[in-house]
């Protein structure tokens, strides 16, 4: 039966089959041609496009971050350098995914891995591609590097990465001048040229490091490399070396700086010492201070919180941001204003009974000396720091004339020192008070402005600058930390142009002489408030004490330090320059809640000036006290 059917249809079936096979063969041919067409499209028509893509795959441009310029003090002592530091990194794809925890455990037996390290590692892990190294530990010690290196073959995918990290070898010393570098953050990204910073992790955050970022950074280099899919570099195709940042020389004398810091150790305060002839900053101290190295690799939470919450506010740069009532330190300037506006002659006398009242008013403005100074002229008034003389003078001048004169010495204005975030202090005027508080100016406010109290605020840098200007008879140099840059490779030096100096012009040159004379009397005069410091001085020093009230003392009440908490104690100030006939150093020092200027601030100033002139400049003086 079966056979019969087959036989019956054999020929027809064959023909049917043959047709089908021929159709199939044609379809195969057509489909193959279709594939060929597709390949012609890919390989001939779009060839260039795909070649570009293939090259993009193969070649990567890697930035070569430039090494940051070093920072030296005026004598070539290194203040900021770059140190090779080692970090431990893991390439996730080379480690089995569920073996990561074990791996960390194993590594922990070789070098300590803290919980913070782990947390940070897992945080980074989420944001990185599988072939990108993820840092696990920073700042390995040499011993840890050695221990790991010996056994590194046991840990495929774990590598030690070397990079240059900013290091401040002197730690806290000079930190408020130097500033520090830290991680580039969102804010930095907004203003910097991202291509110049590709590959760079840190940027100057404050201080000189920030201000001279352009000088210190250098130019980024690049290399074109062939990489495989995991980003492993197989060979370097092209290389353009980075240009290292320039080295920076500061006016700072770091030995003097450290000497001054030691004198102020344990206090809250600041000291700024300038070279009057140039404006060069010899020392810029703000205490308490902190170790800038903490910030370089990102400060940990705990340390940062400690710094923030420390009652001494170590993060505050008091030298440029501490705004204090300057107190009596401005008296010589106020006196000059009296002469300039023809309100007082230098020898013209004022009666000081120990208090002053505005005409027709009851309120008594007290002199610090209750019994009064008697008849005082400008010299006596400065020497003994008579308040009543300056109350009367200020009253006669009026606030606007006083303020205008003081502003010629940069009071109330930025000194334009070459570190950022400086505050301008305050030299009030009628208009200012109206703008600020919408209130009228009271005559009493003029009086206390005359002795550097009330609204008047100045930073230690401003006081030092004004003192330097006075010492140079009006020649004004803006304070300057950096003075020279050095190309790292060619070693060629180039002066950093400082702002042009200006001149404070007075009606009569003798006014300068009078002011300097009066300030000399403070140190060398028989009744000078800082006469203790001048007693055995073999050269001439001019200075002025200041004691700034922190709280208002009740009318008729007496300031009694013993009964007040330390934080309500007066600020002690002293400004000085020396030697008088050839000024080498001008400085301002403030000790917060230190008490009186003569006892807390003047001795520090004297020691610093002495150290600088004798030890640093090695000037020879006749040992006999330079008396009148």
């Amino acid at each position: 039966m079966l056979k019969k059917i087959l036989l019956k249809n054999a020929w027809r079936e064959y023909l049917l089959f043959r047709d089908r096979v021929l159709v199939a063969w044609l379809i195969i041919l057509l489909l193959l041609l279709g594939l060929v067409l597709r390949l012609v499209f890919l390989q001939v028509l779009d060839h260039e496009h795909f070649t570009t893509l293939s090259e993009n795959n193969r070649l990567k441009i890697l930035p070569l971050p430039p090494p940051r310029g070093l920072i030296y003090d005026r004598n070539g002592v290194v203040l900021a350098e770059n140190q090779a530091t080692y970090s431990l990194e893991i390439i996730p794809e080379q480690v089995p995914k569920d073996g990561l925890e074990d791996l960390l455990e194993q590594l922990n037996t070789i070098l300590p891995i803290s919980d913070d390290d782990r947390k940070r590692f897992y945080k980074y892990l989420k944001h990185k591609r599988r072939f990108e190294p993820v840092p696990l530990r920073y700042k390995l010690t040499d011993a840890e590097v050695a221990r790991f290196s010996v056994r590194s073959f046991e840990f495929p995918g774990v590598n030690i990465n070397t990079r240059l990290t900013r290091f401040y070898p002197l730690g806290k010393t000079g930190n408020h001048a130097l500033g520090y570098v830290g991680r580039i953050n969102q804010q930095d990204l907004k203003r910097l040229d991202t291509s110049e910073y590709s590959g760079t992790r840190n940027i100057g955050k404050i201080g000189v490091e920030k201000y001279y970022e352009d000088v210190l950074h250098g130019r980024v280099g690049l290399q074109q490399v062939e990489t495989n899919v995991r980003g492993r570099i197989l060979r370097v195709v092209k290389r353009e070396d980075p240009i290292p940042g320039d080295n920076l020389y500061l006016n700072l004398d770091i030995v003097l700086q450290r000497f001054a810091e030691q004198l102020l150790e344990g206090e809250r305060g600041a000291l700024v010492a300038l070279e009057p002839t140039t404006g060069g900053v010899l020392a810029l101290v703000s205490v308490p201070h902190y170790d800038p190295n903490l910030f370089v690799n990102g400060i940990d939470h705990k340390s940062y919180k400690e710094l923030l919450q420390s009652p001494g506010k170590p993060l505050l740069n008091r030298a440029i941001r501490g705004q204090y009532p300057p107190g009596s330190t401005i008296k010589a300037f106020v006196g000059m204003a009296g002469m300039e506006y023809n309100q007082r002659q230098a020898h013209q006398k004022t009666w000081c009974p120990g208090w002053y009242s505005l005409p027709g008013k009851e309120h008594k403005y007290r002199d610090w000396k209750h019994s009064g100074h008697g008849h005082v002229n400008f010299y006596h008034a400065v020497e003994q720091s008579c308040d009543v003389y300056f109350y009367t003078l200020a009253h006669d001048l009026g606030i606007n004339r006083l303020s205008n004169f003081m502003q010629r010495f940069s009071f109330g204005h930025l000194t334009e020192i070459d570190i950022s975030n400086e505050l301008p202090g305050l030299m009030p005027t009628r208009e200012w008070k109206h703008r600020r508080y919408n209130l009228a100016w009271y005559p009493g406010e003029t009086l206390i402005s005359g002795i550097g109290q009330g609204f008047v605020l100045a930073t230690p840098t401003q006081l030092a600058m004004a003192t330097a200007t006075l010492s140079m008879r009006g020649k004004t140099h803006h304070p300057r930390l950096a003075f020279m840059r050095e190309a790292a490779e060619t070693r060629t030096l180039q002066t950093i142009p400082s702002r042009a100096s200006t001149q404070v012009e007075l009606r009569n040159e003798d006014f300068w002489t009078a002011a300097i004379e009066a300030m000399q009397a403070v140190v060398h005069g028989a009744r000078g408030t800082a006469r203790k410091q001048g007693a055995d001085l073999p050269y001439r020093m001019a200075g002025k004490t200041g004691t700034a009230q922190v709280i208002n003392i009740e009318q008729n009440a007496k300031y009694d330090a013993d009964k007040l908490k330390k934080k309500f104690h007066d600020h002690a100030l002293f400004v000085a320059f020396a030697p008088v006939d050839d000024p080498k150093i001008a400085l301002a020092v403030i000790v917060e809640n230190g008490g009186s200027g003569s006892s807390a601030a003047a001795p520090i100033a004297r020691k610093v000036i002495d150290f600088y002139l004798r030890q640093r400049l090695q000037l020879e003086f006749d040992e006999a006290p330079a008396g009148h």
Partner: protein
Amino acid sequence: MKVSWNTSHTLHLDVLLLVGLICLSFYGLIVLYSADNQSTATLIRQGVRLGLGFTVMLVLAQIRPEHIMRWVPWLYAGGIAMLLAVFVMGTVGKGAQRWLDLGIVRFQPSELMKLIVPMTIALYLSERPLPPSYRHIVVALFLVLLPTMLIAKQPDLGTSLLIAASGLFVLLLAGINWKLVVGTAISLGSAAILIALTPLREKVLHAYQIRRIDTFLDPEKDPLGAGYHIIQSKIAIGSGGLYGKGWQHGTQSHLEFLPERNTDFIFAVLSEEFGLVGVLILFTIYFFILTRGLFIAMSAQGTFARLLAGSITLTFFVYIFVNIGMVTGLLPVVGLPLPLISYGGTSIVSLLAGFGLLMGIHTHKRLLSE
């Protein structure tokens, strides 16, 4: 052709087919050597597999088709049993349950089914008048769909599609109505589109299959994830240009941007290093083998032999078309190797076994007088 070295023994083989297959294998080894970074070990393993494949081919070529016909029902029953066994006791590899561990050897029963299914349908239809009646078509479809479903469940979409195709090719060659073919193709196509593109797919398909479909439709959507294969493969092929980057100089493959470069995506390596010229050489060899296969089918004796030979040849083409279509981005990613070029396992043996059957069919013709 029969090659005899003495009067009593005759070696049955088809020299033209053999030459084509050997050319192809050598071409494949050359590409593979480059694709796997000059690994001699890979080369040797592939050589051993090819050797095994050619041996199986030669052995099968000696068997008369009539003998095979007798074994077919048993083979089919055994094959289905093994597919069921895979479910019960199969080992899992690469996320799918495909392997049957027999102690000494591990193998995929689905590979065997690639030959058993067309044999079965060919046998079933050869015993019935052609073109087949609807009733016979339904039975044949059932015989095809049973193993197809079992394999699709493993899940192994590529192989199950191949097996379905190999069975359907038999039906097609047996002369079923073109209208039926076209009608079925359209309805199946729209069903596939319906499944692939509507929310229905969440229920029917695996997550990785859905991803593949999405990737096919828009590879740029996820250039580092699922679309990565196709993007890199097209870059490799396109950057090869007319003459290629030269042997062992393909950057896409040697810098490892190209994934799966010695298995499913080896065509991209070939295109990158040998260019369009190399591709055309490959196509010429394939076309030669296909033409020879179809010629053997046409000149075969008996419906079973004809249908089987035709189906084996057409299935071989499906491999080629699906693989190259996938690698060039014309088709979605389906895990099919480029036949006899891709590195790897069981497909080489089952492909060459198929060609063994073809040779057997061609060299065991009875004289009409017999």
